[in-house]
């Protein structure tokens, strides 16, 4: 097994331990309110994982994760509201629509990098949100659409969301272990080199946008069947900020970071709720702090501390490696 696989497996195993701990929450917490917070945290974790696939593993700094969540939310919401379709039909429709739109967006932004990609995707996200706000006939605009609950039992809703989170995490693990995962990371590190080694950059970037869009759409669809309301607020730019903060704080380009980051951000957001949108100031400050001083995020801090304590070679300074070579 090679080094990347070992690193990915370690992160995956830690994430499974974390998810196992989450699974135990309903055994100790009976408050529907608190379970609801954890469900929403799982929703943010899903979006963070999906965005991390794009930004952390493929190097595509898209700013549209919550736009795809909104597409998923309205996909199943409209299927239910207008056609009376149950979630079992609406959610797959939502995933399909999100994936197709993700593929389309991916194909369009393939040549774009850096600020151009960020601006294009944020423009796309705003267009989607304004369409949802203004297409009253189909979306009921700012009133939002009532959507049936996936389960009236909050514990059941909790485990459904957890099942989705586990499935996405396992799927991501196998994706990263495959040659596809290596291609995505190669594109992240150097697109020109990747193309020069025979990697079809256009195809694999499009795949990343498609898969990420599908996961976000799935998360959005499940979220509205938990909250009971599809509204344009799901795609608000502040929501995107929370997703980005989750990934940066947890650790970008890792399997565990976005998962834990999603929980941290949701719990913090809940804690600061009385301050309204001013809580975004706290997240902004945290992101600046992490980007400036702890670029590897919390997982990087934990990993480095572990390596120092138990003497893993991973923490060996690059200079030593260079000196060994020359």
């Amino acid at each position, binding site marked *: 097994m090679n080094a990347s696989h070992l690193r990915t497996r370690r992160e995956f195993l830690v994430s499974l331990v974390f998810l196992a701990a989450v699974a135990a929450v309903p055994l100790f917490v009976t408050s529907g309110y608190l379970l609801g917070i954890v469900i929403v945290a799982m929703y943010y974790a899903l979006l963070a994982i999906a965005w991390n696939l794009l930004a952390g593993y493929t190097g595509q700094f898209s700013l549209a994760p919550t736009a795809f969540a909104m597409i998923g939310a309205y996909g199943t919401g409209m299927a239910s509201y207008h056609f009376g379709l149950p979630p079992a039909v609406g959610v797959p429709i939502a995933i399909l629509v999100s994936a197709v739109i993700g593929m389309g967006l991916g194909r369009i932004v393939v040549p774009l990098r850096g600020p151009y990609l960020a601006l294009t995707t944020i423009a796309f996200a705003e267009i989607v949100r304004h369409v949802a706000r203004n297409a009253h006939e189909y979306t009921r605009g700012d009133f939002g659409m009532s959507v049936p609950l996936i389960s009236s039992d909050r514990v059941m809703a909790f485990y459904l969301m957890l099942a989705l989170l586990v499935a996405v995490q396992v799927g991501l693990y196998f994706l990263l272990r495959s040659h596809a995962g290596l291609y995505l990371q190669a594109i992240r590190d150097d697109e020109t080199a990747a193309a020069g080694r025979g990697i079809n950059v256009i195809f694999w970037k499009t795949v990343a946008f498609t898969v990420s869009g599908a996961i976000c759409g799935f998360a959005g669809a499940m979220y509205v069947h938990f909250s009971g309301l599809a509204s344009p607020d799901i795609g608000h730019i502040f929501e995107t900020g929370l997703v980005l903060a989750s990934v940066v704080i947890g650790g970008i380009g890792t399997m565990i970071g976005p998962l834990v980051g999603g929980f941290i951000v949701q719990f913090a957001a809940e804690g600061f709720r009385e301050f309204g949108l001013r809580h975004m100031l706290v997240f902004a400050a945290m992101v600046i702090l992490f980007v400036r001083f702890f670029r590897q995020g919390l997982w990087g801090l934990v990993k480095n501390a572990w390596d120092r304590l138990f003497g893993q070679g991973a923490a060996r300074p690059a200079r030593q490696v260079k000196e060994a*070579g020359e």
Partner: protein
Amino acid sequence: MSLLRFENVHKAFGGLKALDGVSISLEAGCMTGLIGPNGSGKTTLLNVLSGNLAPDQGDVIFDGRSIVGLQPSAIARRGVGRMFQITRLFRRLSTLDNLVTSGCAFGLSFHDALDRAERLIEELELTAVHDEDGGNLSGGQQKLLEFGSVFMGAPKIAVLDEPFAAIHPHMREVMVRFIRERHAEGHGFLIVSHDLPVVLGLTDDLIAMNAGQVVARGDADTVLHDPLVIEAYLGETAVS
């Protein structure tokens, strides 16, 4: 039949003519050195070949078919291996993963890519940095790693842009030995380098460029004594 033909290739950047009617033909299994002063158009020519730049005019025929307009990845898979002047590798993937990724992209199974990568790591003396991220390697090791990545496929021609620049003499020896062995197996090489002694140690077939044009082609003696080459590349002192 030639393996690679540039046919009257033009490329301009604004008013600067980087390539001005370049026509070159290379045979399969060639070992050719491409020399010229900075700004003569060597790297632009390689970028046109590898699909990173489209020519304004002219054609590039590889293995009997035009490759103009193809994606760089498609050109690479057809057998044009490219090593860049500024080292390009996957900085957050380990040495092994850099090679395995390239192998898989060139069509090897994961298992075969792993086998070949392990052999190359040994051959290129990168064993000490087997599991290190590419970004942690020294400049020379990175060059060797990029070089090895080209040979995770089976390039009909390996296009090396300044492979010997700023690397340790021992690493240069490793690379030269590797080039000789692969050339003996039938792989072609087009080597751009300012390190003339090393190039001359590898090949007697030289192409000299200046101001976007091919000014001389032939054996080392012919090219290095060509007045245009002396004037453009070697300087007046070389005449004496």
